[in-house]
């Protein structure tokens, strides 16, 4: 994981807290090693290497994750597609180049979860070049797993924060909640809103993680698998759900749904905060917040 991560554990003794934190870190590393598409020996690496060749047998954990990806695909109407990672090859964010229509069309040929062949506990990618990418929910799943490790070790105060996807084990030792700030999508170092958290998961998705701007238009890394182009309706969406995996699923799907996101988030009944492209916040009840006060980090 190339981004800043932290695990916060409160315990009676520093030694115990360290032991618990180390166990949680180990779990995160285990998942990263197992599902990173950058590691050839990982489960995802092997599945991708066998694309167009042969099916790959999956263990219990992988099967459940693929099931999860499948239901995400269906309920998002095909927008959340873990084969859409190849589109990132067409969009070069470092070179800040807008790909041509034919380049996008070429990449789109390899996108489509519906074409992936699954039976029992095996999976086969039907064509060479089709790639699986667990990046859309891997971090969130790792956060949930790390939090579970902490709970099993008896931790009841703390949280796991993997680059902004957070799983809460319990409140601060005195019972008060953790104050979590939501990164301001346009101002570095600023927080746009805060939410007290004691349990569950909180995940954020935004157009500011990786992007470039050309001709006054922002091109971000969240690419739609139907058009092959970046979404542009929302600057950022944060969701609170019983698990971080669910929170991440909702926030990413909502980003992909663009103009239909509010209806989707409202019907979920979950607490969300969505910032539209003008910077206006919307939250549970889809009401435009009448007073927008920006948080300022006092530095």
């Amino acid at each position: 994981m190339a981004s800043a991560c932290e695990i916060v554990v409160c315990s009676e003794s520093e030694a115990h807290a360290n032991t618990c934190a180390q166990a949680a870190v180990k779990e995160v590393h285990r998942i990263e090693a197992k599902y990173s598409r950058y590691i050839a020996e990982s489960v995802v690496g092997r599945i991708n290497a066998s694309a167009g060749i042969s099916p790959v047998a999956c263990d219990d954990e992988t099967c459940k994750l693929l099931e999860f990806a499948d239901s995400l695909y269906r309920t998002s109407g095909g927008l959340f597609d873990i084969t859409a990672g190849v589109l990132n090859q067409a969009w070069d964010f470092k070179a800040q180049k807008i790909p041509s229509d034919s380049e996008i069309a070429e990449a789109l040929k390899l996108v489509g979860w519906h074409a992936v062949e699954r039976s029992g506990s095996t999976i086969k990618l039907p064509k060479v070049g089709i790639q699986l990418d667990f990046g859309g929910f891997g971090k969130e799943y790792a956060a949930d797993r790390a939090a579970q490790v902490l709970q099993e070790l008896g931790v009841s105060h703390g949280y796991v924060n993997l680059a902004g996807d957070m799983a809460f084990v319990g409140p601060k030792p005195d019972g008060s909640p953790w104050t979590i700030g939501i990164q301001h999508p346009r101002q570095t170092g600023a927080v746009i809103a805060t939410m007290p958290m004691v349990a569950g998961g909180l995940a954020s998705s935004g157009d500011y993680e990786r992007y470039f701007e050309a001709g006054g238009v922002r091109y971000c890394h969240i690419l739609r698998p139907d058009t092959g182009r970046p979404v542009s309706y929302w600057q950022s969406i944060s969701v609170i759900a019983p698990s971080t995996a669910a929170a991440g699923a909702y926030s990413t799907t909502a980003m992909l749904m663009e103009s239909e996101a509010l209806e989707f988030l409202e019907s979920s009944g979950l607490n969300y905060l969505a910032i539209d492209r003008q910077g206006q916040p919307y939250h549970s009840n889809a009401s435009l917040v009448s007073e927008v006060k920006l948080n300022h980090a006092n530095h």
Partner: protein
Amino acid sequence: MAVAAAVTKPERTLTDNPARSLSVAAAALALVSGHCVAQTQPGEGMVAVKYLDYLDSQPGADRVRVKARSVMAIVPVSQDWSFAATNTVDAISGASPAYHTAALSKLTDLRSAQDLSVTRFFTNGTVAAGVSFSREADYLSRASSLQMTHLSEDRNTTWNAGVSHTSDVVDPVNRAVKGERKRVNDFLVGWTRVLTRNDLVQVNLGKSYGQGYFSDPYKVFDNRPTTRNSTTLLGRWNHHLEETQSTVRWGYRWFGDNWGVRAHTATLEWVQPLPGAWTVSPSVRLYSQKKADFYIDADTTGSPFPPNPPDDALVFSQDQRLSSFGAVTLGFKVSRQLGSGWTADVKLERYAQRSRWYAGGDGSPGLAPFNARSVQVGLSKSF
């Protein structure tokens, strides 16, 4: 041969409540991870009592409610996104890894370069430790402190205790002395009690022990003792009048030290809310001080030269702040709540000091009356 389960690309519709099926899927995943808890928030807020401000957080209890404008935050748990400006964020959720390190380092750098304090909250009290540092051209001050508060079970009584150590170095620009040091140790114990639903009382006892350089290097004849030990006794009573919604604040402070200074301070403030979110607070403060034993009376006969200290005097000072005098301060403050917890206020004070107002007899002779006017403007936010 395995039959592949082909899934056709679905239509994009929202008619069958996809959100619900999504949560089912997440729940299924949760069965793997095991980490799935209901989203609940604790029912009660956290109470911190700071000095005279007291905020009731116990549901169903009948208690005085005084607005708290306090650095020790009282944060009721809510389920709502808060858009108010806040200084304390424990962690940040956001999509950008690059922003985390930068944002976090900026947000944790809230304390000024000069003051650092950490407070640890327990169920029945707090412990706070702090260090501070300030440097001026001629004065370097370093201090560290430790304070504790303890709340009774019924939250009606608070004990507080504090200790601090200050270490100063004086390097006046006129080079009268060089690198003189002063060390002071302060101790404070206090007791605050909510007597009735309309009454709050507080008693504080402070002891200070200082040694080192206390003289004023910018004065011609000024050589003070190398120790200064003092005792302070402070009593306060806040009374709320329900008929007028106003609060009356009485205070009395006694000060005595080993220099012979004895001082009494009596304060009275009336806080009166008015319609339209206005509040007016007239106040009066009466002060009477007996001079330090080594104070030299002003004598204008040799003007412009100040009088020499007596020949056998080891310590002496002509600083009029160590003379016998009385003073009256009249104050008037107007404040208005601006909405969303913001309050703006303006305070005007008129200070008048006269030797003849010394309550214990004749004040120090030869001193001119001293008057001062001050205006204070403030903006604060409570949350």
